[in-house]
């Protein structure tokens, strides 16, 4: 069975030890103006590396740019 989380309301594969930092690395999310929430709770930048994401979590990584 493939374990998944929700990332911005889309399926994303879960793996042991998955953190916010790891997700950002995999997705190449390099933009700095972002909002991160796990199950509705805000995660601060300094906690990205330490925040473990569990199977079934709902992760939102919202990029704030609505204009060029």
């Amino acid at each position, binding site marked *: 069975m493939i374990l998944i989380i929700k990332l*911005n*309301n*889309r399926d994303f594969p879960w793996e042991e030890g998955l953190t916010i930092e790891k997700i950002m690395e995999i997705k*190449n*999310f*390099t*933009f*700095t*103006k972002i*909002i991160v929430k796990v199950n509705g709770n*805000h995660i601060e930048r300094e906690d990205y590396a330490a925040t473990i994401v569990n199977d079934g979590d709902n992760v*939102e*990584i*919202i*990029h*704030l*740019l*609505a*204009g*060029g």
Partner: protein
Amino acid sequence: MTIEEAPLEAYDAHILGEQLTEMYADNEEDKRNVAVVTAGTAAEHSRFGILNFTFYDPRRKTTRLKQAGRGGIGTVFRNKKLKALIVKFSNVKGNLNNTFEQSIINKTGIKYHKEIHDQDHLQNNMRKIGTANIIEVMDAYDLLPVMNFQYGSHPDTEKIKSTVFIEKYLTQGVQDGCWYGCSMACAKAADNFLIKTGPYKGHRVTVDGPEYENAAGLGANCAIFDPEGILELNFYCDTYGIDTISFGTATAFAMECYERGIINKEITGGLELNFGNFYSSVELLHQMSKGEGFGTVVGQGVHRMKKLFAKKYEADEEFLFDIGMEQKGLEYSEYGSKESLAQQGGYGLTNKGPQHDEAWLIFMDMVNNQIPTFEDKAEALHYYPMFRTWFGLYGFCKLPWNDIVPADNKYSDEPAKVPEHVQNYLDVVYGVTGKRLTSDEMIIESERVYNFQKIFNIRMGKGLRKDDRIPYRSMAPVTKEEYESRQERYDKQLKEKIGYAPEGMTAEEKMAVLREYREDQYEKLIDAVYKRRGWNSNGVPTLEHLKYLDMELPELIEVIKDLQ
């Protein structure tokens, strides 16, 4: 107001701006009270001439230029034989026009200044690099236009990323506001830049920018991954009075046509227009300036080049329509919209043509997945274009809205709208005029103007559904190479969204299925957006909508009554 003759002065903006500032200022101190609007020599021989606006930079002791007016206003300016428009005015201060309550403006200004001071280095580095901070961001998200929008990233972007400009070219540590006292101060410049070609070869000049659009359009989109090449093209576009975005996109189109053999060296008059050829690109500009050679063909813009290449050189008209990145005669600005349906509408469902200052929804749509349904996208394609039209109504700079956001913006209800900053603008309007507006009223104000413009377009024969058709490259891969560059993504979509099994199918077969799907999606988006904007299925404002906006003017009704 006076009308004067100036036959002896130069035409190119960086010289003429300096000459006229010198001529109209009483002394060095007075130079900051003079602003000069000019075009340039190439504006006369192309259709995408732009206007330059000078401001005197007392630190550098030089006249600087900022550009505005996509769509050929510089061409109109030169066509009317206008050389310059000069404004001289002294003692600009906060309460110059009898402000209603200056303390409100001061309070908002101080709050905002502190916020930029605390946040800029954590967010965007606007004070160090300006808007070019997003070059590498767009590359990382596969959105940077590369080789006429075929691709979204390139390994050589490394050579033109923002830090290269900051470290090697842009003067640091200077408060660079194009408006004296602006807190964000994003109008960066490269000083003492040595020009390598053309009439100013060997001159050391101050080059404004590059803005993101210039680095992307003059650089990546033409595969010119050379910071000095970009700066020189930027300089010549400015001083010759040429819109950098239209030039970048038009040149990228000509380069692709050259690479595909649609045009050749004989047609270009000897220019080798391969992707990456800086010298050919800058030569096009010099030719535009002189009104000669293939530069004047490129200067007609993509819309006319498509027609010319099809008619004169028997090129496949449909293919040219697919790859020619223009709509309503305006060249696309520099973001890839293939993977964001909302942004396809952000470009295609505009009054003026595909530019990004109505709606930039790529992250909201493609990355954040915040507007998944057609109705969600339509709501965004209503709100943002109306909101952003409002800056033009009041003469505000847009950048203090969302380029840097308050530290606690993330806790607000709708962070993408940056509610605190919307309130800043409303507070300033109140402080200046005494008019208290709500955020809903500001949208209605814009809607009135937007619908007026829309009806004007209809009157000029350009405002109906057929005019909102977009080139296929802005919605999906046109060629096999483009498909294969993102094969995994497209194959997945075929399977998951269309229920089509891509295994064993040729690229051509898969592309045909994808095309049908994507074109249908765009049509559905149009339906939803028109409905949200109060227009009928042909893109015409309904009479009820005009009534709702209090805009039942006989002149407007006359244009649309038979199109209901």
